[in-house]
């Protein structure tokens, strides 16, 4: 009987745990007070972030979130501590989770803009909801060209699509690296495979062999693809994918004695690449990015980011920072409803740390501002700008 009591109490304890956890709500809905503490004129609004903060793609999402949060922090330093509130929504990078958090975000009347969603899949799933709710969003990383073809008037993206970046990367390979043989692989993500397809199409017969890897976190042993690259005789290896896998492949290629040049897209332009591969192996790797070097824009973004988050800015951190600043600029100019904000986004021309942004009717970046730069990792693991790639199409 005593054991029965213990178990019954245990059951009650579990119940208490769940309810107790439920008891300490963040209560973010009702603590409003409409910017009472803010010194600026347009306070009390929220700019939401949606993206992967847990799950296997969390490292990418966290980079972006930190860029977003940094912009708001800096804005609040000028305009009062609680002027614009941070509202983070974790999608786990999963299109099955995205609709729920999107509905929650749009139900908050203070949210007048969304930075996100980083991946194309979750953008597809959440896009109809944001559009229906008339909340403008700027995606800092979703590159699938189809996203702008759904007629969503509230959708914007601050990056070039695979259609723009792939040919540029191929042009760089063709004109600068001038290899005889190229090996192309991707990680089967919408981003990676889209990029790799574009590169393959442009390079044509120069591509001697191709392969596909599993997504980030699903594969760590790349010995088979490394062996294929070596035996194909390719001197350039293009990888469409993100830095986690790219760093591992780079390291294992170097360990196996391959001496060629690895080329990647903006998903590889991350300090995490050099961290995984080690600076020695990473050195010489070329990454393309539809963005301008941060040094061109001046400013202190790189240092500020490092100081705030105690780590280097990663892939798309800068784009998210810019996207957030576009919204903040809109708020500064008195666009304090989602509709007005959307009108503002139609006309804004904003120069940030990564690019100059102006959106077309479908929410794409204006082609005249599309620049693709090539960067090269140096011996200290930092990607240094090499040159702007001429877009010939």
């Amino acid at each position, binding site marked *: 009987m005593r054991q*029965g009591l213990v178990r019954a109490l245990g059951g*009650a304890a579990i119940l208490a*745990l769940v*309810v107790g956890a*439920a008891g*300490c709500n963040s209560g973010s809905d009702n603590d409003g007070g409409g910017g009472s503490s803010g010194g600026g004129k347009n306070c009390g609004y929220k700019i939401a972030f949606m993206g992967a903060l847990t799950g296997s793609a969390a490292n990418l999402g966290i980079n972006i979130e930190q860029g977003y949060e940094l912009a708001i922090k800096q804005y609040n330093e000028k305009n009062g501590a609680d002027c614009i509130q941070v509202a983070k929504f974790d999608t786990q990078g999963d299109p099955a989770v995205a609709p729920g958090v999107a509905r929650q975000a749009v139900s908050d009347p203070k949210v007048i803009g969304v930075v996100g969603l980083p991946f194309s899949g979750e953008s597809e*799933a959440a896009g109809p909801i944001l559009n229906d709710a008339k909340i403008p969003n700027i995606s800092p990383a979703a590159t699938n060209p189809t996203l702008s073809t759904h007629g969503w008037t509230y959708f914007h993206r601050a990056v070039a699509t695979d259609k723009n970046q792939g040919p540029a990367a191929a042009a760089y390979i063709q004109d600068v690296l001038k290899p005889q043989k190229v090996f192309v692989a991707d990680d089967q993500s919408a981003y990676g495979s889209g990029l790799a397809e574009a590169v393959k199409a442009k390079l044509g017969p120069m591509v001697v062999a191709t392969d596909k890897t599993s997504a980030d976190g699903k594969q760590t042993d790349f010995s088979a693809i490394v062996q294929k690259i070596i035996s194909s005789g390719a001197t350039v290896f293009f990888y469409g994918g993100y830095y986690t896998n790219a760093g591992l492949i780079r390291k294992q290629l170097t360990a196996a004695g391959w001496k060629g040049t690895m080329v990647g897209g903006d998903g590889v332009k991350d300090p995490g690449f050099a961290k995984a591969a080690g600076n020695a192996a990473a050195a010489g790797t070329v990454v393309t990015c539809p963005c301008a070097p941060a040094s061109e824009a001046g400013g202190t973004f790189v240092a500020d980011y490092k100081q705030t988050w105690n780590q280097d800015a990663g892939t798309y951190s800068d784009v998210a920072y810019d996207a957030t600043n576009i919204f903040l600029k809109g708020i500064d100019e008195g666009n304090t409803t989602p509709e007005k904000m959307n009108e503002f986004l139609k006309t804004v021309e904003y120069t940030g740390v990564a690019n100059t942004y102006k959106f077309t009717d479908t929410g794409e970046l204006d082609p005249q501002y599309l620049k693709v730069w090539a960067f090269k990792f140096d011996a200290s693991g930092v990607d240094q700008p090499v040159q702007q790639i001429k877009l010939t199409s």
Partner: protein
Amino acid sequence: MTTVQTILRWRGPDGGVRGWFGRQPRLVRWTLLAAIAAGAYALPYVGEVPVIGPQIVTEGVDWRTALFNISYFVLLALGLNVVVGFAGLLDLGYVGFFAVGAYTVALLASPNSDFKTNWPWLATVPVAIVITMISGVLLGWPTLRLRGDYLAIVTLGFAEIIRIFAENTTLLRGDRGFSGIPHPPGKHADGTPIFGVRDAGPYYWLGVSLIIVIVLAIRNLDRSRVGRSWLAIREDEDAAAIMGVRTFKYKLWAFAIGACVGGLGGVMFAGQNGFMNSASFQIQFSVLILAGVVMGGSGNIAGAILGGALISYIPDRLRGVEIAGQDAFQYRFLMFGIAIILIMIFRPQGLIPSRRRAMELKDRAKEVAPQ
């Protein structure tokens, strides 16, 4: 003392609430169940209830979407409960059937599909049911001769194979996925669709209705000859075979029925989400559903419902919770893991244990040497 006794009585397999419930006349029992069902339909409005309501609704995710998610998790748990709880077959690849159901809808209904059929959602449902049942049989045929944990790893393998093909073949579109999957039919008086993009409530109500139908069907099945055969197979397959139970046939039935219910979950999911890609069918998902079934009480329909609901609800509810002033969203799976361990330690038979299984285990406990 009386409270303690009440708590204790609540536990006993034949005493307590459940014993009391079993002794009531048919009418009372059905009225109570109807009241519970009505309560389930009213859950989207629970936030309006003072004091308790705001504690129940989720913070970081839309409450009605969370409820819809619960509804398809419950469907999956019900289906897996047939396989694991009734027939005693350990299936670690259940998400495979969920994927088959969802992909059937996507292929037939999405404008992205190579088939270009563009069927409405409703028309895909019977096709999806048939195809998932067939997939259950196809998968079961070669594997059901295996036992216990061998079956577990093989089913896991099959689910991975399905996922990898979804990721790689152009027909299934991989990570690019299918967009524009149509929603269930129906229009309000003013012409706006009942199943829209903003409000997940109708999807939830549809889910609850489906759950009620499935529960009735499974309950009847469990009490029929089929259910008794499953019981026999679960307890001792060799003995059952000797007594003339056609074990392979009934195991295959369990697989097919489980697959069909899981596929329905996928159909609901695709119809609500409107977009799907290969990212939503990870092994971890199968493992989670299994955790739900066992946590709730393997072999018990009420247990499967509770367990399936909890595995979806707990992580969603933990969004927006603050620890020491910090939003603790990133700790929510950590807390979820702790909750799983605690629940299993304190209620090893599950939250609502199967009465039959409890008796069997009690029986078995006698055979074990004292510690």
